[in-house]
């Protein structure tokens, strides 16, 4: 009986842990409503347009998922880096590095190896993104260079590198005339990630949409990353370094290698996200030359999703879907009501701040509960001994 009440209390307490995040979301919603009113738009209409635009129809939901795929990859990667004590803001650059190498392999192999080109391209992309991420990890570990700054700089370098390659050596030979945008040739059909259709026949879900197998790959990788982080020695070491660098050093871990490793894994995930955009969606690597021309800012949105997912690879999956929906829905809102989608960027910023700020309340709660639990255990011990003696 006593055990049962404790159980239900535990459930409630867990929900209470989540409460600050709810408050954060609520505050974000309220802020958006105020902004919308200031923009002379009806908040209720705007929100329902957003929801409808993101989840309202089969196609809308498919587009939300399509949008969330690269965010998911980056968010999983950023989660690994954050757990390893590295703040990776370089998702944009790592996506580009992965996509460049992945596209180069895909185009180079053509149809010569059949469908094997897909895994090979993905491996290349992982290595490409990983190595690009590892640069920042290396600089942090061995030269004490702030990784936030180095990754931001490396993002800029990657964009220029991509512009150069797509406008020069990797330019689609067919479009090399006067009027072209920076893009590679189209990949072979055998290298395309298949469309994802759930079910068969007329009732099949996501028929005639752009949803592709990248989603499944991302979810599988989320599970693998979860296992890696919490069920393997490698993951334990990464997290140990993230939690307490000094203690890890005393424990004999090679802290520097761990930092490089977590950035490699993190960058590799982002690189995969880039390649999946090429193989599953655009069928070529292309940009308009602007910094987010290829990535669509997934490298930045992945940060938001990773935080919102509680820095847990499994949490990153629904969080990315939520943010994908937010972005897709905002476009719909802009189309229907003329409210600039830039509002969503501002709201995203507010959400980041609120979620990060709410951590302190969660931590305080946990500390308090830990004290209470210790007290309870002590009390039980006392009672037990009292019973035994009595």
């Amino acid at each position, binding site marked *: 009986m006593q055990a049962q009440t404790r159980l239900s209390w535990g459930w409630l307490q867990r*929900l209470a*842990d*989540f409460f600050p*995040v709810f408050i954060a979301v609520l505050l974000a919603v309220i802020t958006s409503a105020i902004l919308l009113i200031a923009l002379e738009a009806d908040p209720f209409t705007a929100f*329902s347009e957003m*929801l*409808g635009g*993101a*989840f*309202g*129809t089969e*196609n*809308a*939901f498919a*587009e939300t998922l*399509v*949008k969330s795929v690269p965010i998911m990859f980056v968010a999983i990667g950023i989660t690994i880096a954050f757990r390893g004590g590295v703040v990776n803001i370089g998702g944009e650059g790592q996506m580009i590095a992965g996509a460049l190498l992945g596209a180069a392999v895909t185009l180079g192999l053509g149809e010569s190896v059949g469908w094997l080109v897909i895994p090979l391209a993905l491996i290349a992309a992982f290595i490409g993104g990983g190595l690009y991420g590892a640069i920042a990890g290396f600089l942090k570990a061995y030269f004490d260079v702030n990784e936030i700054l180095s990754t931001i700089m490396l993002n800029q370098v990657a964009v*220029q590198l991509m*512009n150069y390659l797509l*406008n020069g050596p990797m330019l689609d030979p067919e479009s090399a*005339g*006067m*009027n*072209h*945008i*920076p*893009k590679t040739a*189209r990949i072979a059909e055998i290298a395309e990630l298949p469309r994802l259709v759930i079910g068969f026949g007329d009732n099949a879900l996501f028929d*005639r*949409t*752009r949803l592709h197998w990248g989603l499944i790959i991302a979810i599988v990788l989320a599970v693998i990353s979860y296992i890696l982080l919490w069920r393997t020695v490698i993951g334990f070491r990464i997290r140990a370094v993230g939690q307490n660098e000094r203690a890890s050093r005393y424990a004999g871990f090679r802290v520097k290698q761990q930092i490089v490793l977590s950035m490699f894994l993190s960058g590799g995930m982002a690189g995969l996200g880039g390649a999946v955009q090429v193989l599953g*969606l*655009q*069928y*070529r690597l*292309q940009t*308009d*030359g*602007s910094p*987010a*021309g*290829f990535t*669509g800012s997934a490298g930045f949105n992945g940060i938001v999703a990773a935080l*919102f*997912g*509680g820095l*847990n690879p*499994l*949490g990153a999956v*629904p*969080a990315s*879907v*939520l943010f994908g*929906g937010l*972005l*897709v829905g905002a*476009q*719909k809102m*802009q*189309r229907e009501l003329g409210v600039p989608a830039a509002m969503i960027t501002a709201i995203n910023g507010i959400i980041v701040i609120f979620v990060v700020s709410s951590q302190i309340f969660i931590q305080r709660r946990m500390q308090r509960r830990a004290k209470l639990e210790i007290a309870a255990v002590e009390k039980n011990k006392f009672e037990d001994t009292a019973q035994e003696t009595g």
Partner: protein
Amino acid sequence: MKARFLTLLVLVAALVIGMVIPAAAQDEIFRVAVVAPSATDDLAFSQSMYDALVAIRDEMGEDAFQFDFQDGTFVVDDAAVALRDWASSGEYDLIIAHGSQFGSVVEELAPDFPEVSFAWGTDVNTFGLDNVFAYTAAAEEGGYINGALAAEMTESGVIGVVGPIEVGDAKAYVDGFVAGAAATNPDVEVNVVYIQSFSDITLATEAANTHVENGSDILTGTAQMVVGPIAVALDDGIPWFGTQTSQAELAAESGMVFQVYDWVPMLNDIMAQIDEGVLGGTSYTITLENEGLVMEISEFAGMEDDAVEELQAKIDELTEGIVSGDIVIFPEEDMEATEESSD
């Protein structure tokens, strides 16, 4: 952690369920939807299309013509969302993807919706599809005229060009400008800087300053970051030549001649075809000849009447030369970009 994960799942599920938008009924109105990379008021590429649609709506009236315009969508993926959303809604007679980066999206999307008409540009490729129109601008023509005029006007013999990235109609305009200047006066030095960004105004401004410091007494440029160079031209009191839309108001007394993209004739033709049941297959190039390109002399520059007349006469002469073929803009180059592709 687990609780948060579950709650998130619940949250997502709750959002998925229930939201269905009623589709609007079909009627006699010609509906157009456009997705464009920059703002409708970018004084450049996106605005040229927006202005054309507004002009058509003003002419036909709101009960005969309506359009939705999603601007600021430079990310290909976001544009794809909008395009697919419109296509699947079945509410639109014509869907325009206004940006050469959107081509691959149209190529994949159009076969899925054979009953919807698509138009995209700037490019000449209709992918061999019956429901895709393509359009492009022969930006080098106005570039040539601007270059020729600038070469006559310069006293220092140095002209500065601020470009974004060496692609698309930006490259066409700049190359045309250089060719026009060289053909008019081979001694004139045209300095071209591509700042590798469509948006970095600070760099564009400083590029313009660098031009001026290196002796340029005339400036030109293309893409939306030219706001910076225009401010430099105004500040230093030197002439500015523009392209894509009229930047006359912004450039005020510095503004000279602007190559304006006028998509109205092309759009009217596309609409007429759609009304007859032809959903695509044509590739358009707006040129000086078909009056899709219009050279406008700034009305805000405060030029004397006879100066304007003289300028107009020169423009007319050059236009005639280009239209008649007497002037070959790129003598040695293959004319691949301006060729009309027919399928």
